[in-house]
C-alpha cells in the first residue's frame, strides 16, 4: 500500500511511537487468538484485536482511500452547503451526523448473524467481522457516501441507472425491494422465537406500544419537541415494564401472555400494518428515540462489562462444523456460509441505501466522509464483535441446545441433552433446566434466532458486575426487550419504506397510487408489503425443517446481493472517471462478495446434500410423499406438503438472487470495458465545483491546524474548539 506523501510527511515521532504501540498490541492480541488451542482465553483479547485493527485501518487505509483514491476536497462546497433548504439539505455537525448515520445503519443484524456463526467457532467470525469491515464493509459505506455526495445525494438506484444503464437500475430496485421483504420476515422471526411461550418477554414488549404512544402524545401535545424529556420518561417506563414482566410471570395473568409462535405472527403482522399507516409522530418517531438511546446505552454498557468481567471464551476457536458443514444451526461449510451469515457488521449492502439517502445531503465537508461513512461502520462492526463474545462465553452444550432446530433437539431437557451429546458436546438435563430457571424462562431448548442466546450471554456479563445472580433474569429480559424493541422499529420503518417503493412503482401504472395522502392506496400498498413479509414469517414459524436455518441464508444472500450492486456502482464510477488503477479498492471486495454469494446460492440451489440444497430437500420429500411416507421431522402428510412448497419458494428465490447478481456484474463489466477502450475522458456525472465557505474540522476532534483555521474564521477559540462551525 502506498502512503500518500502528505500523510508521510506529517507523521511526527510521537505518532510513530503511538502507532507502533497500537500495531504491537493488535498483533499480540491476534497472536493470542490464533495460537490459543485447548486452553480458554479471555474475551478481552478479542476486544483488543478489534480496536487496534480498527484504529490502524481508520488512520491509514481510510485516510489513504479518502485522499488518494476519492480525492476529497474541502475547498469544494458539499450539497448541504450549496442546496441548504433547512429540510433535507442542511449542513450538520459531523459528530451529530455520525450519530444519525450510525442510528440508521445499526440494528439487530449485527447481533444476530455473529451468534449463529459462532457454530463455526469464534475465530472465523472474528476474522471476517474485522477484516471484512476494514477492506469491504466500511469501504463500501464511505465510497458510496462520497459518490452520492458528489451527485447531490442521488440514491443508489439512480446512480446504478446513470452509471450502468436502465438494466442495472431495475435490477437494483428489485434487489432492494426483495431484500426488504426477506429482511423484515427474518427479523420478525427472531422476535417471535424470542417471545414464544415467554409471558415475561411478551408482556414487556407489548408495553412498548402504549409507552411509545404516550411519548408521541407528550411530544405532540404536552411539550412539543422536548425529545430528551420524553425519552427519559420512556426509558424509565421501559425499565418498569421489564420489572413488571417478572410480576406478570408469577401472577395468574401469565397464561394470558403465554402465546404460541403462530399467534405472535398474527399479532406482529397486524401491528406492522397499523404502525405503518398511522402518522409517524404516534408510534415510529417515539420508538426511534427509544430504540436509539437503548441501543447505544446497552452497547456501551456491554463493552464496559466485557472489560470488567473479562469473561472466558468457552467456544472453540474453529469447530468441526467449519469443515464438515454439518452444523445444526445452519447447514454448509465455512466458505461461503460464515460470510453469508455474518452480513451486518462486516459487509452490509443495506447500508448503501442510507449512505446514498439522507446522510450525503447533510455532510458539511467532503473529508468528513471518512469519519461518518467509515467510522460509523467500524462502530457497527464492534457491535458484532460484542455479539460474538456473548455467544462464545456460553457452554457449547448450552449454545447448541438453544440454537439447534426443535426437530433435532426435541422438547424436553433429556432429549436435548441427548441430541447435544450426539453432536459431540455435553450438557446434563439438570444444567439445561437450571440455566432456564436462572433467567426465569420455562425452557431454553431450541430458542433459535440468536436473540435468546445473545440475551443469555449478556445477562452473564452484566450480572457479573451489576447485581449478581439475582439480577440474571432481569438482565436476560432487558436484553430481549432491547433487541425486540429495535427489531419492531425496523419492521415499522421497513414496511413504510417498502410501501413507498411500491406506491412509487405502481403509481406509474395507476396515478392516484403514487399520492401519499390517498388513503385506499395507502392501506392497499401497506397490506401488500405486510402480507409479503408476513408470508415468509409464517413459513419460518411453521417450517418443519426450522425457520431460521432455512431463511437466514436467504437473508444473507439478499443483503450481500445489494452489497454487490453498491460495490459494482462504485467500481464502475472509479473506472469511468479514469481511476482504473484504483479500481481494486472496491473491485476486490466485489469479487470476493460475488464469489461468496454465488457459491452460496449455487449450493443452496444445486447441492445434492439434503441438509443444504433446497431442491434436494424438495426432491427427497416429494418422492416420499409419492410413496405415501412421512419423513421426520415432518409429522404428517400436511407437513410433507409444507416442506415441498417452502423449499420450492426458497430455492427459486436463491436462484433469482444469483441471476440478478450475474446480470448486474456482466452489465457493469460491459460498461467498464467500453470506458477502458475509449481513450478519452468520459463526461463526468458529478455536479460542478463550487467553492465552500464553511470552515469545519474533519475528524472527531479538530487537529491543531484545523483549530487555527477555526480561530482564523472567528468561530473557535483556542480552548473551545468544539464550537459548532459557522459561516464565515
Amino acid at each position: 500500500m502506498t502512503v500518500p506523501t502528505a500523510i508521510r510527511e506529517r507523521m511526527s515521532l510521537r505518532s510513530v511511537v503511538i502507532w507502533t504501540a497500537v500495531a504491537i498490541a493488535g498483533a499480540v492480541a491476534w497472536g493470542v487468538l490464533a495460537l490459543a488451542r485447548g486452553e480458554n482465553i479471555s474475551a478481552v483479547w478479542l476486544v483488543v484485536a478489534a480496536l487496534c485493527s480498527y484504529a490502524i485501518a481508520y488512520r491509514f487505509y481510510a485516510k489513504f482511500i479518502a485522499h488518494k483514491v476519492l480525492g476529497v476536497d474541502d475547498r469544494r462546497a458539499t450539497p448541504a452547503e450549496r442546496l441548504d433548504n433547512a429540510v433535507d439539505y442542511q449542513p450538520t455537525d459531523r459528530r451529530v451526523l455520525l450519530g444519525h448515520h450510525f442510528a440508521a445503519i445499526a440494528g439487530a443484524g449485527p447481533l444476530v448473524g455473529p451468534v449463529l456463526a459462532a457454530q463455526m467457532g469464534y475465530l472465523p467470525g472474528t476474522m471476517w467481522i474485522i477484516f471484512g469491515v476494514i477492506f469491504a464493509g466500511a469501504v463500501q459505506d464511505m465510497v458510496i457516501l462520497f459518490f452520492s455526495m458528489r451527485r447531490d445525494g442521488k440514491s443508489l438506484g439512480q446512480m446504478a441507472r446513470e452509471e450502468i444503464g436502465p438494466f442495472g437500475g431495475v435490477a437494483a430496485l428489485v434487489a432492494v425491494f426483495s431484500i426488504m421483504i426477506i429482511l423484515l420476515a427474518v427479523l420478525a422471526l427472531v422476535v417471535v422465537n424470542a417471545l414464544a411461550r415467554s409471558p415475561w418477554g411478551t408482556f414487556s414488549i407489548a408495553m412498548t406500544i402504549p409507552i411509545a404512544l404516550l411519548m408521541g402524545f407528550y411530544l405532540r401535545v404536552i411539550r412539543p419537541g422536548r425529545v430528551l424529556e420524553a425519552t427519559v420518561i420512556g426509558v424509565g417506563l421501559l425499565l418498569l415494564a421489564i420489572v413488571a414482566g417478572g410480576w406478570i410471570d408469577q401472577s395468574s395473568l401469565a397464561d394470558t401472555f403465554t402465546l404460541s409462535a403462530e399467534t405472535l405472527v398474527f399479532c406482529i403482522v397486524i401491528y406492522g400494518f397499523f404502525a405503518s399507516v398511522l402518522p409517524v409522530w404516534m408510534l415510529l418517531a417515539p420508538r426511534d428515540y427509544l430504540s436509539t438511546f437503548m441501543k447505544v446505552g446497552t452497547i456501551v454498557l456491554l463493552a464496559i462489562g466485557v472489560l470488567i468481567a473479562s469473561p472466558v471464551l468457552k467456544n472453540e476457536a474453529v469447530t468441526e462444523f467449519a469443515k464438515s458443514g454439518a452444523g445444526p444451526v445452519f447447514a454448509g461449510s465455512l466458505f461461503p456460509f460464515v460470510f453469508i451469515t455474518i452480513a451486518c457488521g462486516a459487509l452490509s449492502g443495506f447500508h448503501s441505501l442510507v449512505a446514498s439517502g439522507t446522510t450525503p445531503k447533510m455532510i458539511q465537508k467532503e473529508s468528513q466522509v471518512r469519519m461518518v461513512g467509515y467510522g460509523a461502520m467500524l462502530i457497527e462492526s464492534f457491535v458484532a464483535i460484542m455479539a460474538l463474545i456473548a455467544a462464545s462465553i456460553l457452554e457449547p452444550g448450552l449454545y447448541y441446545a438453544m440454537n439447534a432446530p426443535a426437530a433435532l433437539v426435541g422438547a424436553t431437557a433429556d432429549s436435548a441433552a441427548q441430541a447435544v451429546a450426539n453432536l459431540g458436546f455435553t450438557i446434563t438435563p439438570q444444567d439445561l433446566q437450571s440455566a432456564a430457571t436462572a433467567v426465569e424462562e420455562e425452557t431454553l431448548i431450541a430458542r433459535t434466532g440468536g436473540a435468546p442466546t445473545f440475551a443469555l450471554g449478556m445477562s452473564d456479563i452484566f450480572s457479573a458486575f451489576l447485581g449478581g445472580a439475582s439480577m440474571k433474569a432481569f438482565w436476560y429480559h432487558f436484553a430481549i426487550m432491547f433487541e425486540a424493541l429495535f427489531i419492531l422499529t425496523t419492521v415499522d420503518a421497513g414496511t413504510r419504506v417498502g410501501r413507498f417503493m411500491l406506491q412509487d412503482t405502481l403509481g406509474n401504472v395507476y396515478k392516484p397510487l403514487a399520492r401519499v395522502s390517498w388513503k385506499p392506496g395507502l392501506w392497499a400498498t401497506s397490506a401488500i408489503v405486510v402480507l409479503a413479509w408476513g408470508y415468509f414469517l409464517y413459513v419460518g414459524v411453521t417450517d418443519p425443517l426450522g425457520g431460521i436455518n432455512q431463511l437466514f441464508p436467504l437473508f444473507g444472500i439478499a443483503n450481500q446481493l445489494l452489497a454487490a450492486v453498491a460495490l459494482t456502482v462504485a467500481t464502475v464510477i472509479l473506472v469511468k472517471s479514469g481511476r482504473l488503477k484504483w479500481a481494486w479498492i472496491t473491485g476486490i471486495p466485489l469479487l470476493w462478495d460475488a464469489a461468496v454469494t454465488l457459491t452460496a446460492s449455487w449450493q443452496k440451489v444445486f447441492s445434492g446434500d439434503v441438509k443444504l440444497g433446497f431442491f434436494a430437500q424438495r426432491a427427497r420429500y416429494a418422492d416420499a410423499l409419492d410413496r405415501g411416507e412421512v419423513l421426520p421431522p415432518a409429522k404428517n402428510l400436511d407437513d410433507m406438503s409444507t416442506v415441498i412448497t417452502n423449499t420450492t419458494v426458497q430455492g427459486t428465490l436463491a436462484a433469482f438472487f444469483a441471476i440478478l447478481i450475474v446480470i448486474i456484474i456482466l452489465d457493469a463489466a460491459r460498461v467498464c470495458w467500453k470506458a477502458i477502450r475509449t481513450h478519452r475522458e468520459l463526461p463526468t456525472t458529478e455536479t460542478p465545483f463550487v467553492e465552500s465557505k464553511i470552515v469545519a474540522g474533519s475528524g472527531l476532534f479538530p487537529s491543531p491546524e484545523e483549530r487555527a483555521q477555526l480561530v482564523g474564521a472567528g468561530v473557535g477559540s483556542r480552548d473551545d474548539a468544539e464550537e459548532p462551525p459557522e459561516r464565515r
Partner: protein
Amino acid sequence: MSVRAVAGRLWCFLREVSGETAYDQYVERHRRDHPDAPVLSRREFERRRADERGHDPGSRCC
C-alpha cells in the same frame, strides 16, 4: 477539561442529536433570512417537522 464541562458538552451533543435544537436553529435562521416575517410557534414548527418525516421515513438497516 473539568467533569462539568464534559457533561455540559455531552448534554449539548445529546440535544443536537435528538433534534431538540432544531427549533432554535429554525428561529435563528428565520430571523436572519426573513427579519419581517412572523416566526412559527414551537408547537406548529414541531408539528410540521414531524409530518415532514411521514413523507420520507428514510431507510433503516438491519
